[in-house]
C-alpha cells in the first residue's frame, strides 16, 4: 500500500489516500492505542489528532530532508530520535498552554513516540520521497487519523452523555449509555465502524 503512494506522487491522491484508501485506523489498523483510549469525548480526540498531525509533518520533513544521508542500519534509530523530539515538544506545548487537556490525555501524548502511523510514514514515504510529497502524505494521514478519532469520539460522546463538544444535542429524556465511556464502548464502536467501512468499500469496489 505504501509503495503505491510512493509510485504515484500525485499530491491530491497522496492526500486522499490517508483519508480513505489508506486510512491509518480503518484500513491499516495502526494507532489502535490512542484510538481506543482517547475517544471518549471529541475534545481530547481532536487534541490527540492535532498533536499527531504536528509530529507526523515535522518528522516527515526531517526524514525526507535527510533521506539520502541515512545509513540503512541506523535509520530506525534516526526515526525514533526525530519522532521523540517532536513528541516531547508537543507534550511540553500542551503542558504549557493546555494543562487540563494535557492531564486528560495523560501518558497518551508521550506514547505518540511508539505510534506506528508515524514510524510507518517515515519508513514508507518520507525516506523514499521528496519534501512536498512527504508533507502532503503526513497531512493526509494525520487528517485521516484525526477525522477517524473525531467520528468515533462523536459517536461515543453522544451516546454516553447526550452531548457533543459538551453541548447537549439529545432530548432531556435520553438515558446516557454509561458503557460507551468505558473501554467496552471504544471496542464496540471501533468494531462496528470497521465493519461499516468494509461494507462501504466492498460496495464501492
Amino acid at each position: 500500500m505504501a509503495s503505491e503512494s510512493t509510485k504515484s506522487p500525485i499530491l491530491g491522491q497522496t492526500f486522499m489516500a490517508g483519508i480513505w484508501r489508506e486510512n491509518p485506523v480503518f484500513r491499516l489498523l495502526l494507532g489502535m492505542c490512542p484510538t481506543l483510549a482517547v475517544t471518549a469525548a471529541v475534545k481530547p480526540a481532536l487534541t490527540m489528532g492535532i498533536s499527531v498531525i504536528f509530529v507526523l509533518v515535522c518528522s516527515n520533513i526531517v526524514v525526507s530532508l535527510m533521506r539520502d544521508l541515512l545509513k540503512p542500519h541506523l535509520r530506525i534509530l534516526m526515526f525514533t530520535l526525530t519522532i521523540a523530539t517532536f513528541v516531547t515538544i508537543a507534550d511540553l506545548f500542551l503542558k504549557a498552554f493546555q494543562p487540563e487537556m494535557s492531564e486528560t490525555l495523560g501518558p497518551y501524548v508521550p506514547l505518540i513516540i511508539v505510534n506506528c502511523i508515524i514510524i510507518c510514514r517515515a519508513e514508507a514515504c518520507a525516506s523514499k520521497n521528496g519534501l512536498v510529497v512527504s508533507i502532503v502524505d503526513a497531512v493526509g494521514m494525520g487528517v485521516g487519523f484525526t477525522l477517524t478519532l473525531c467520528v468515533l469520539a462523536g459517536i461515543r460522546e453522544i451516546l454516553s452523555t447526550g452531548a457533543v463538544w459538551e453541548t447537549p444535542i439529545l432530548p432531556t429524556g435520553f438515558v446516557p449509555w454509561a458503557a460507551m465511556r468505558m473501554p467496552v464502548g471504544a471496542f464496540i464502536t471501533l468494531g462496528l465502524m470497521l465493519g461499516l467501512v468494509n461494507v462501504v468499500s466492498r460496495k464501492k469496489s
Partner: protein
Amino acid sequence: MSKIKYFLEQSWLLIISAFCFGLLLAIANAAWSERIHQNEIYKLNELIVGLVNDANDFEIVIQDVNIPGGRGKITKTDIYRVLDVQRKTAGFAFVAVGSGFADKIKLVIAVDSKCEKFLGFDVLSSNETPGFGDKIKEDKFRDQFKGIAAGNLELIKAGEAKDSEVLAISGATVSSEAVVKIFNTYIGKIKEKLQTAGLNQ
C-alpha cells in the same frame, strides 16, 4: 585511527542530529518551562484549598525540608500553612513525591492544624496506567485517607480497612502501595519539623 574514522563515517549524522534535537528541546523547555511551572502552582493552589476545609489562603512556613528516601536519596519539600478567613491555621500541606508503577507520582498531602490527622491528598501529577493505577485519583480511594491518624499507614489487599489501614485498589496494588509509601516516607519528617518549629499547637 581507522576505527575512529569508520565510527565517524557511520555515525556523524546521528551525532549532529542528536545535538540539533537536544538544542531544539532545550529551546522549547526554556521557552515554556516558566509557564508549565506557573500552571503547576495554580494547580497546587487549587488542590490545597480543596483539601482543607475553611481554607482561604496559604503561605510557606518551612522551606526545603529534607526527606530521606530509599538508597540514600534526599528530596526536598516545603510545608505550607493553610489559613482560614480569620488568618488562623486551618491545617498544613506539603508536596510529596515517590515512584509509582509507570513514573513518579506527585501528591499534595494535607494534615490538620495539630498534625494529628490526615485531611486527605490529591494527585498533582502522575502517569499511572489509565483504568487501573490512575484510580488513585478517584474519591473512593482518596476518601480512605481522610481523618485517619497522621502516622505510618498500612496497605491491606482485602477486607475492611481499620484505623491506620488503607484498602488497595483492585488491579492497581503497585500504585496503591506507592501512595501509602509516599505518605509513610514524608509524614514522620513533616511532623518532626512542625513540632520543632512549634507550629502544630
